[in-house]
């Protein structure tokens, strides 16, 4: 970020914080903005959870309740000051989220939100029935926030506290997303297989995101408790949980500033509707829900990415941290050519009654290109998935660099130094090519979420992005590095996947139909690249239908048919093998 832009942002932030003291801003709006700020915190968590991580929660209001009740009970019963209860409130909320999340995040798509509804309601009734928490009446007489001896009781003073918190939350969230962990979190939306194929622990990342969103909600709850100076179960029900979700969806569930827009929109609208609608209907009640529900459905139908992208356009390119003293990441020592790398022994995989891969075995040495070919349904992709752990072995063993494995997982495979591409391209279409490729280096970085939030990861991040750049240049897509991956042609996307695999710094590269969709010149370039990698000692296992490509490139070929290995050897040997001809052409020739 340029110095000018950063200074402009700081000036803007200070101007916002000073606004209530200018005398221009009416008291009514100051109070409204206090509420908007608190809602923004909750909505921000949901934006990360829903739009970025592909999960959602209807129970965020309950986490607000955790933050609020924890601080209320501790200040009233134990006489702690609000500043002392702040870390405890966040910790209690985070722990609650950790417990609930540990149960629910491993479940598929819709079970998590369903779970959040259930426990959202459970906690609502719990808050309302525990005598220690004041039951339905709640707790009142909470101390205000104090700076020194000065109490922040005026909404104008509280405004500063709220928006300082919002600013910190935005900076931390933006930093988190623009980091190694952030990329892995964004990849989660594509499903766990992709994330784990590059060594990211999908379940742990989901849990991390879930807890982070809850802690933001807990922070809002802590603020709320000491702004109202009273808590009651009312604002922590599922209805409020859905309102927070509406904010996230309305603003734009993939973009952090959408949270602010959504929170402001919903809060102001509710305020206006609560004045207007009872007049129209004739008696009082929560009629704004009619409009809120309709808006939610309409937004999903017409602008599923929310309003923020419509206003602000596509996301800005990632910040480019300057490399520090160390210029590049450490790389693996490649084994000498010819050294045994991978041995598959008697791999077996059944799908119900079908034996998709039956007793298949072969060996692969460093600096060798091995092609796996066979007619459709021969079991090539299944074999591929067994080697990378994407599917589980029924029996058989995989020996990798002398280590014997009876079970394989995508994460273990990635840690072993095996990188793969996918038959159906798996890129995040709205992420830039550079970020997609940089994700491949997930295991080469160490910085965690906390270091990312306070930007202690910049040196490492610079090296990761530099490495990603290097591999993009190497595969010949340098000019496309900052475009969204979704804007490339299909053949180019396959090449991006190869660059991403190379950033893992693998011993073994597994390519699933890399030449499909490429033009002749591109195929030549790809073949050149693979020969180059072979020279450096990398091994390549290739599933491919393009026979010219395979025959000219592969050192050896393994032929599968109906799950069984029918031939193995050098291209010429395989080409002349009558069994192979029979498999491909239908009968003996």
């Amino acid at each position, binding site marked *: 970020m340029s110095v000018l832009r950063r200074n402009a942002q700081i000036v803007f932030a200070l101007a916002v914080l000073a606004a209530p003291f200018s005398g221009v801003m009416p008291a009514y709006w100051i109070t409204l903005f206090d509420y908007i700020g608190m809602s923004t915190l909750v909505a921000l968590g949901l934006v990360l959870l829903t739009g970025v991580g592909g999960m*959602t929660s*209807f129970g965020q209001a309950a986490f607000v309740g955790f933050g609020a009740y924890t601080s209320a009970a501790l200040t009233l019963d134990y006489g702690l000051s609000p500043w002392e209860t702040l870390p405890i409130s966040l910790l209690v909320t985070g722990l609650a989220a950790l417990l609930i999340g540990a149960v629910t995040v491993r479940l*598929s798509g819709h079970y998590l939100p369903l779970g959040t*509804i259930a426990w959202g309601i459970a906690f609502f*009734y719990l808050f309302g*029935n525990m005598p220690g928490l004041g039951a339905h009446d709640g707790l009142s007489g909470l101390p205000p926030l104090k700076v020194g001896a000065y109490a922040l009781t005026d909404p104008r003073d509280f405004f500063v506290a709220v928006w300082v918190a919002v600013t910190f939350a935005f900076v931390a969230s933006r930093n988190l997303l623009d980091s190694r962990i952030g990329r892995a979190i964004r990849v989660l939306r594509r499903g766990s297989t992709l994330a784990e194929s590059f060594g990211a622990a999908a379940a742990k990342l989901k849990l991390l995101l879930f807890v982070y969103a809850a802690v933001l909600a807990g922070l809002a709850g802590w603020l709320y408790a000491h702004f109202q100076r009273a808590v009651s179960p009312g604002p922590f029900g599922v209805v409020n949980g859905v309102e927070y979700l509406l904010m996230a969806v309305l603003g734009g569930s993939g973009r952090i500033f959408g949270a602010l827009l959504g929170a402001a929109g919903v809060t102001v609208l509710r305020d206006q509707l609560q004045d207007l609608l009872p007049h129209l209907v004739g*008696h009082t009640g929560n*009629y704004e829900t*009619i409009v809120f529900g309709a808006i939610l459905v309409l937004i999903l139908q017409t602008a599923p990415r929310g309003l923020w992208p419509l206003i602000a356009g596509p996301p800005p390119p990632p910040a480019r941290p300057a490399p520090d003293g160390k210029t590049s990441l450490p790389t693996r020592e490649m084994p000498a050519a010819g050294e045994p790398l991978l041995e598959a022994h008697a791999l077996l995989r059944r799908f119900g009654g079908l034996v998709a891969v039956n007793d298949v075995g072969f060996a692969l040495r460093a600096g060798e290109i091995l092609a796996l070919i066979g007619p459709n349904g021969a079991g090539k992709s299944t074999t591929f998935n067994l080697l990378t752990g994407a599917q589980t072995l029924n029996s058989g063993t995989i020996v990798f660099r002398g280590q014997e494995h009876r079970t394989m997982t995508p994460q273990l495979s990635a840690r072993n130094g095996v990188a793969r591409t996918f038959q159906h391209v798996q890129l995040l279409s709205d992420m830039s090519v550079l970020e997609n490729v940089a994700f491949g280096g997930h295991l080469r970085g160490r910085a965690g979420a906390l270091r990312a939030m306070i930007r202690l990861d910049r040196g490492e991040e610079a090296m990761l992005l530099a490495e990603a750049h290097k591999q993009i240049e190497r595969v010949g897509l340098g000019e496309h590095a900052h475009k969204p991956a979704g804007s490339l042609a299909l053949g180019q996307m396959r090449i991006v996947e190869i660059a991403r695999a190379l950033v893992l710094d693998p011993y073994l590269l597994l390519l699933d139909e890399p030449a499909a969709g490429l033009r002749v010149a591109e195929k030549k370039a790809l073949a050149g690249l693979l020969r180059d990698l072979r020279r450096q000692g990398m091994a390549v296992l290739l599933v491919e239908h393009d026979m010219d490509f395979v025959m000219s490139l592969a050192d050896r070929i393994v032929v599968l048919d109906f799950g069984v290995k029918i031939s193995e050897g050098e291209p010429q040997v395989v080409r002349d093998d009558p069994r192979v001809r029979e498999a491909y052409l239908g009968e003996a020739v």
Partner: protein
Amino acid sequence: MDSTIVLFLVQDAIINGAIYALVAVALLLVFAVTRIILVPQGEFVAFAALTLAALHAGRAPPTVWLLVALGVLTFVSVAWRQRRFFDARTLAVAALANLALPIALALLAQAMAPLKLGLASEILLTIALVTPMGPMIYRLAFEPLAEASVLVLLIAAFGVHFSLTGLGLAFFGPEGVSTPALIQGSFMIGALVVTGQSLAVVLATVALLAALGWFFRATLFGKALRACASNRLGARLVGVSTSMAGRIAFGVAALIGAISGVLVGAISTIYYDSGFLIGLKGFVAAIIAGLSSYAGAGVAAIAVGLVESFSSFWASAYKEALVFAAIIPVLVWRSLVVGHIEEDEE
């Protein structure tokens, strides 16, 4: 706690469980066919009870205006979506279903209500008024989202629930109602007093589930729904309209909801927003059954009823908290059983 109390609690559990089972079956049906988790199912239940109560009191139910309003909105949105590829036949059918039918029903209800023709005709009219709301809601809210992910559909379902609850308050007001029992009186089985209504609930539930079973096995529409549930693309390739299937599923769900409402109104007082908790408990049952097995959902619904009635005896203040917390161990169990995680992709 003696055996009489246990028997009483079990009876209570079975009655409530039967209602939850109906809700759960409707949820499963709609989820299988459309991938929508129908949060507003409870609203059909509440609206039916409120409608029946109004009719029984000799008043034209506010439901008629709600139905006409939904119909007009639906017609307008269908017409709007057709602005580029105008098709007179579709539009005429939509006008018939969303304008003519609601208005005819509204006039009928206005004319019939003061006559007090008896419970049977009032129940039929209630069902006739509530059932068309199902397909209307599908067209209005969900048809344009047919290709969206389960998550987006779930959020949209909550939006619909939100709107309907607000509309319920606007149209029906905040007062609670109860409706007359289908079978009056009570009788003794051993030491247990069994009310006629509990018998009616259990009988009606069993009959309805049997009818649904027949519908899915023997009718063309039922088979088409099953085809959509098992493979949407495949169903389309053999000529089953998934949009039509969605409307039918919503219609059947609203019908089940209307019948549940008729049954539940005599058991407890129903307010405009009572449907949410009833719906969610059916929902808990459906989740326990893994959103896939109808028989499992029936058993789970009774289990939810048991948790509810026993916890209301032991810890009545925490009744709701306990019912919904009961889902957590179920999710733990599922997360241990489900090894591989299948997710929605972008």
